[in-house]
């Protein structure tokens, strides 16, 4: 099963890290927990400089509905609210925590071992308390997706285990090593939404993960759907299309098609929050790239600077030409190795200068590869030529706003045109 359009990235770099078991990182001296890491409003800090915090203690409270709680990843002293290089390139506010080396703390919530029989509202409250966000990339607070407005009927829950981005294997390792957590998380999400049989969509290049998850199909009442390998299968709309054949309308949300999509990482975190009563303070991060000495997956606490993660991976073999947070297709290039890991950092990718694409265009030859590759059925080449001539009206007529910036078009472009960046520019200009 799959969707129409899309691309097959060749040499997707997953083999660098997909056989490396997840390791737990040693404790660091300092953590910089980013405040503005979830989509929506940043949470408000509830600690100040000099406060002693325990592990799992609330350090910033959600501000409004589209916002998520933040907890201390370890025990220690608050060094203050400081500015650190943020993942979007501009300095961002973070809570500095100076670890005391004990990493001690009690789970702040009561385990809900009887989750199969209690009120779904209590489970939903747990999602809010634990500060769960979408861990795939957008970092959208999870509980928002669990609260469909009246009139919207949700009949399908899909867990996103596609992990279509090249190089990343964090979700793969998670599903393979902790299938029970993922399956249980799916079942809990299903119970909150009242969906009978949640679906986990996994691309077939992760055969071992599919096998592992299938062992829990009956126990938790879920089903695993193998998907053909194709990028961008992990995009919500494409995943829904691949699994259910439904199409989310242009400009709409998955809820419009009766679907909710959650990341497998979020499901595992939910399982921990329910069974152990602990909030989201660490995540699995793939530290990889062609110049990384020994790529692999690590369980990193929130606020770990990228340079520490690179240290864990044994440093680099040569000076990297690009540092990317996330995958190579949709991730963000970074200016500094001081950027800390956030809830949505699925990968830290270091590419040598030769591997990363050099955008140096001469002229569009209208070969149509981008049109074939576009999963949203757009015509990126026409959009790009219109935008380069500052004709944003033309770009709008050609549905530039439907673009989700998956990068398939720029990936296949033989002229190496900065198609996605042009489209981003048009969107920014049109939103003005």
């Amino acid at each position, binding site marked *: 099963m799959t969707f129409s359009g899309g691309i097959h990235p060749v040499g997707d770099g997953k083999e660098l890290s997909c056989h490396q078991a997840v390791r737990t990182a040693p404790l660091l001296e300092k953590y910089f927990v980013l405040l503005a890491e979830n989509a929506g409003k940043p949470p408000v800090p509830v600690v100040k400089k000099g406060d002693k915090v325990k592990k799992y203690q609330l350090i910033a409270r959600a501000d409004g509905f589209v916002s998520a709680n933040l907890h201390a990843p370890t025990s220690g002293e608050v060094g203050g609210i400081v500015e650190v290089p943020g993942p979007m*390139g501009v300095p961002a506010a973070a809570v500095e925590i100076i670890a005391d080396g004990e990493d001690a703390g009690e789970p702040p919530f009561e385990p809900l071992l009887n989750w199969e029989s209690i009120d779904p509202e209590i489970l939903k409250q747990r999602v809010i308390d634990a500060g769960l966000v979408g861990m795939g990339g957008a970092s959208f607070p999870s509980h928002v997706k669990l609260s469909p407005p009246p009139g919207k009927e949700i009949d399908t829950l899909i867990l996103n285990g596609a992990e279509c981005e090249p190089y990343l294997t964090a979700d793969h390792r998670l599903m393979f090593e902790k299938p029970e957590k993922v399956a249980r998380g799916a079942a809990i999400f299903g119970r909150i939404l009242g969906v009978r049989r949640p679906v986990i969509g996994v691309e077939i290049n992760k055969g071992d993960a599919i096998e592992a998850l299938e062992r829990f199909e009956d126990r938790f009442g879920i089903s695993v759907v193998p998907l053909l390998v194709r990028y961008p299968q992990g995009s919500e709309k494409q995943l829904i299309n691949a699994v259910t054949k439904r199409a989310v309308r242009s400009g709409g949300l998955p809820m419009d098609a009766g679907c909710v999509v959650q990341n497998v990482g979020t499901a595992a975190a939910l399982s921990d929050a329910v069974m152990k009563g602990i909030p989201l303070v660490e995540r699995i991060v793939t530290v990889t790239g062609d110049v990384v000495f020994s790529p692999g997956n690590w369980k990193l606490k929130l606020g770990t600077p990228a340079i520490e993660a690179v240290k864990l991976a044994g440093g680099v073999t040569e000076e990297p030409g690009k540092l990317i947070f996330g995958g190579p297709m949709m991730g963000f*290039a*970074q200016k500094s190795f001081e950027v800390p890991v956030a809830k949505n950092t699925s990968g830290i990718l270091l590419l040598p200068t030769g591997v990363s694409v050099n955008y140096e265009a001469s002229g569009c030859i209208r070969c149509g590869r981008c049109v074939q590759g576009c999963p949203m059925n757009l015509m990126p080449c026409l959009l790009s030529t219109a935008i380069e001539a500052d004709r944003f009206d033309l770009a709008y007529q050609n549905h530039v706003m439907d673009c989700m910036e998956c990068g398939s078009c720029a990936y296949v472009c033989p002229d190496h045109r*900065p198609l996605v*960046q042009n489209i*981003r*520019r048009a969107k*920014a200009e049109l939103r*003005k």
Partner: protein
Amino acid sequence: MDNTILLYAALLMGILGIVLGVIIAVFVKLFSVKSDPRVDLALELLPGANCGGCGKAGCADFAKVLAAGEVQPANCPVSSSEQIAAISLALGIDAGEVERMQAVVCCRSDIGEVRKMNYNGVQDCVAANMVAGGPDECRYGCLGLGTCARKCPFGAIEIIGQVAVVHRELCVGCGKCAAACPRGVIKLVPADSEYHIYCNSPEKGANKRHFCKAGCIGCRKCEKLCGSKFKLSGFLSQVNYADGAVVSGEEVRSIHCPVGCLLSVEERLEAAYNKVKGNKK
């Protein structure tokens, strides 16, 4: 014989003329459109640059509201005072009075030699600013990729050595550049003010010094000497245009800005050219 042909010819042409004339007359009556000649008149007198500086979609729209008496001719920032007088005379309305504005690019990233990272992509400020907040270290400075220069209908902005500089004599203050700039470096200031502070970053002076030699350090020297003519926002001093402050040359000399941020428009332009020349050598 000739006479008969002439007669017939005259007859034919006459009848044809009359018949067609009558038909046209009937049509004109049937399809008459009320139009305000004052709109066309105003449109003719307006500059026709369609810059949008007046806040309307273009000169045609402005002419419409002008004829309706909703705005005054002086609202057109492009027309000279003689042109405005001509419009007000033609339409028989009061010219009105609007303060003339002018754009200033408040940045000296060329002089300050702001560090820039390698950037690979679309050569446009809006696009570049979205990639990790822009390739330069200063988040508030001019990127110098020329989006404003391309947007300016009057060609008043020149990119000199990776920084935008406004040519005062060409700028009419329509504000298109200011709207286009993703970082808000371009400010619209009263056209009669001569001296401006060429920095846009409210960051701490010490932070700024890491990557820019020419940023305002917020020493407040200007504020101490000239009082309310300057105000501090963050760690950035600014001329208090809102209160109609005009800084004179004498005051500037007495202040003697330690980083040289306080400059006249001409001095700034000259400095930019000199910098490029120096770099070439």
